[in-house]
């Protein structure tokens, strides 16, 4: 026995040594080490065909033409669409994070009635009942400036005998009120920034937040020989790359523009408008360089220099931003100069009874909304217009939770832009009438429904689905559906007749007089797309691009010139309270000499009380301290001329 045992041990030792001379142990160890890297909870990549699917993104004010990067049909990123002139391959900071927002936990997951989850059928019953009870006291607030979805909503209003269609305050509205309202024009104003040899951006922060920002930046990059001048109360990012910054208070922009008109008229420029003589007399007497300098602080030499640059150019264009008066003054100047201002025709309607775009822009939301039943579409009036909107019952359509959905009675989740049909008809500012279409890129994962489909189920508007409406729209335009779905834009090179246009001389003379609030400092609110807009809070990847001039920690930062800071007794980092309108904001101070003395510059778009970790509780809401003032001569309201009192805390 002892011999066998010893032999067995010897053989075992031999086998153990022997196995070490084979790959078995080493391979097994290697495999085990690989096994330890494959825990089931480790996320893995999705594999499949990688595509760039064209569509439109409506997260920014103007909308972007994009290509959504997908793998095996699932969206994972967004880039610009080279084939579409609205993009040229570029994309704005909000739309760049479209996929992250699509997958955000702040998406609305199902219809909610007063915080309780309900079905779509129940939602339709509730709205039908409210609609029947409201009669004509129905209103719509839309945050979409360029979509055919507005035709669906306005057709519903028409069906109910209401014309209460409200757009959120935007540059397009001020421009339309000036052009079609005051000057008797038709169509939509556009600006040929790419081919202009002199561009005066009179308050339009065109390379950051005004108009079709991406197309503007592409035009700016392509226009190598053109000169760009920015006029405004603050040296914005746009001003930082233009040839010249002319400090002009926002409320003085119309007077500043008419001051330039003075030199242009003096140079003998004229326009065949019925009220040209009246206009000329008004400008030559009321807006002399001395008077403009007194009203705006802009020196006569500066006015003369800018006017000289415009007169020397063969294709100049003035791009306005701000009040209706400022827009009208700029249009008058453009007519005198005869340069790169374009008039775009409006595309044909898909729904016969829908309002025209101009009609949709007529209502003045700053004067307040009061309705028994209010539909809010992709807009956030509770955040941006906290005092203006009142309704008996509010239905909010959105794809993410906002202050407005939190306050609404009924919340109806709509698909994310990448999950729905949508379109972009001539966003304000483009040089030619442009139409782009978007089809779903990925399947909706939540219990959502297109707002237009929901509305089409409430009344007989002649269509069953929004897709049918868009087909009718494309047919009315005369575009090719397949080409549009492939990402190309339909561009219409046509100009409406402008022969009957006037210079609004009788109104402009009064409207251009600067009206300022009663606060100690002028307020220059500004928008940066990475910070957010009135309707869209900042997006997941954008906060890391927000500079210390806008946000430090959770504190908003306001900027002012050193002379202003000295006068207030504050310095860099001081905590201050800004009071204006009926609201207050807190902020930290940053000193920046690119702000007009006596003015404090504050970023719009922060201070959300509802939202994701990237926007909620970050900074403060400057919309609270904006002052709505009446531009009496034009019969409109404006935020220009807002003032604040600033106190150190």
């Amino acid at each position: 026995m002892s011999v066998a045992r010893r032999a067995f041990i010897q053989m075992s030792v031999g086998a153990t040594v022997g196995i070490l001379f084979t790959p078995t142990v080493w391979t097994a160890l290697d495999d085990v080490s690989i096994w330890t890297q494959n825990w089931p909870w480790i996320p893995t990549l999705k594999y499949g065909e990688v595509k760039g699917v064209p569509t439109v993104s409506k997260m920014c004010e103007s909308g972007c033409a994009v290509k959504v990067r997908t793998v095996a049909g699932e969206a994972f990123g967004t880039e610009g669409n080279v084939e579409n002139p609205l993009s040229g391959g570029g994309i704005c900071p909000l739309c760049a994070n479209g996929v992250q927002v699509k997958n955000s936990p702040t998406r609305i997951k199902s219809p909610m009635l007063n915080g309780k989850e309900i079905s779509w059928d129940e939602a339709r019953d509730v709205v039908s009942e409210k609609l029947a009870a409201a009669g004509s006291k129905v209103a719509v607030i839309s945050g979409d400036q360029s979509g055919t979805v507005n035709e669906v909503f306005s057709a519903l209003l028409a069906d109910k005998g209401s014309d209460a269609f409200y757009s959120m305050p935007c540059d397009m509205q001020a421009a339309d009120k000036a052009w079609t309202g005051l000057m008797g024009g038709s169509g939509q104003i556009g600006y040929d920034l790419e081919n202009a040899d002199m561009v005066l951006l009179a308050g339009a922060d065109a390379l950051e937040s005004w108009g079709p920002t991406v197309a503007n930046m592409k035009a700016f990059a392509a226009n190598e020989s053109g000169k760009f001048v920015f006029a405004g109360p603050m040296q914005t990012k746009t001003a930082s790359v233009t040839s010249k910054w002319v400090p002009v208070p926002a409320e003085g922009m119309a007077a500043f523009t008419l001051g330039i008109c003075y030199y242009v008229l003096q140079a003998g420029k004229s326009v065949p408008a019925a009220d040209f003589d009246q206009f000329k007399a008004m400008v030559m007497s009321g807006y002399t360089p001395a008077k403009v300098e007194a009203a705006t602080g802009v020196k006569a030499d500066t006015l003369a220099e800018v006017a000289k640059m415009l007169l020397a150019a063969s294709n100049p264009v003035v791009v306005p931003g701000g009040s209706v008066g400022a827009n009208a003054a700029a249009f008058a100047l453009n007519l005198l100069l005869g340069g790169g201002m374009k008039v775009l025709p409006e595309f044909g309607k898909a729904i016969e009874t829908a309002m025209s775009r101009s009609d949709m822009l007529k209502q003045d939301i700053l004067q307040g909304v009061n309705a028994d039943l209010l539909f809010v579409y992709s807009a956030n009036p509770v955040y941006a217009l906290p005092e203006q909107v009142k309704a008996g019952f509010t239905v909010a359509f959105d794809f993410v939770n906002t202050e407005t959905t939190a306050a609404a009675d009924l919340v109806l989740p709509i698909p994310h832009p990448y999950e729905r049909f949508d379109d972009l008809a001539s966003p304000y500012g483009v040089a030619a009438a442009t139409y782009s279409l978007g089809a779903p890129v990925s399947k909706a994962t939540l219990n959502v429904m297109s707002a237009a489909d929901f509305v089409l189920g409430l009344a007989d508007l002649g269509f069953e689905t929004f897709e049918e409406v868009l087909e009718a729209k494309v047919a009315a335009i005369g575009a090719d559906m397949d080409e549009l779905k492939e990402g190309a834009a339909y561009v219409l090179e046509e100009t409406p007749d402008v022969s009957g246009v006037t210079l609004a001389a009788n109104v402009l003379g009064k409207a251009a007089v600067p009206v300022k609030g009663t606060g100690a400092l002028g307020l220059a609110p500004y928008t940066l797309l990475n910070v957010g807009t009135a309707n869209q809070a900042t997006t997941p990847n954008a906060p890391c691009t927000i500079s210390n001039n806008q946000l430090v920690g959770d504190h908003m930062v306001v900027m002012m010139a050193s002379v202003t800071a000295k006068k207030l007794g504050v310095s860099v980092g001081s905590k201050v309270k800004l009071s204006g309108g009926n609201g207050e904001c807190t902020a930290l101070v940053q000193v920046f000499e690119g702000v007009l003395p006596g003015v404090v510059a504050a970023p719009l778009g922060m201070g959300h009380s509802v939202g994701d970790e990237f926007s909620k509780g970050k900074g403060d809401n400057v919309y609270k301290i904006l002052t709505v003032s009446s531009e009496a001569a034009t019969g409109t309201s404006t935020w220009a001329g807002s003032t604040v009192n600033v106190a150190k805390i």
Partner: protein
Amino acid sequence: MEERKASKRCGGALPFIIGFLAACVIGWAVIPGLFFENVEQPFRFSHSIHVEGQDMDCESCHYFRDDGSYAGFPTNEACAECHAVDPEEAMEAIAEAGIDPKDFDAIMKAEIGAIEDNLASESDEDKQAEREYVVKYLIQGEEVPWLNYQYQPDNVYFSHKAHEALNIEEMAEMKDELSSVVDPSVFDEPAEQNCNLCHLKDIDKNDTPPPFQRNILSGYSKMTMKMWKCERCHALKGQPNACYTCHK
């Protein structure tokens, strides 16, 4: 003392040598095979029918990112471009026939017109394979769980573009050094393209895919190239072997 002498006589080095040799034989010839289990592909997919018969190339079904890295197999959407069976129509026909849509054998036996009329294959054997794909996956809306012979984990970056210039005839000069990395028979009659260096030899001409050999410990394919193999080839070709070369 007597016992110790006896033990030396009866044992000595022989048991040790026997154990040593037995372990070597088992360790080299038997155990490595036990690490793998054969798993069949979801159904018979003939590369030759698609490549030679339909004039398709690798990129028709195997997707690559712009940088040449592998991006995946085709989805049903891509397959349906040719296998034009309408899932809705087929499902309606199955319901009309009173068959459980998940009873694949019954559906295949029933020879539903909405399916049979749209099969593209010619021979019975090929038709059966296509029918299996259509019934089990296409009309069910289920993507095919293909087994990837060369699967690499996400933390490995491999660009086909970076390797497309490798000349198989030049590589043949390193045949001996590469014997543990590349099947030597690949160099016997070198193919025009160098796919055979890493992929199943002449897979494009294959009519019935071989079983997927799954490692019972790691779960990876037997053909998944391990790091030392990548490094061996890189070293022989004078290419960098720094971590970041493959782990981005």
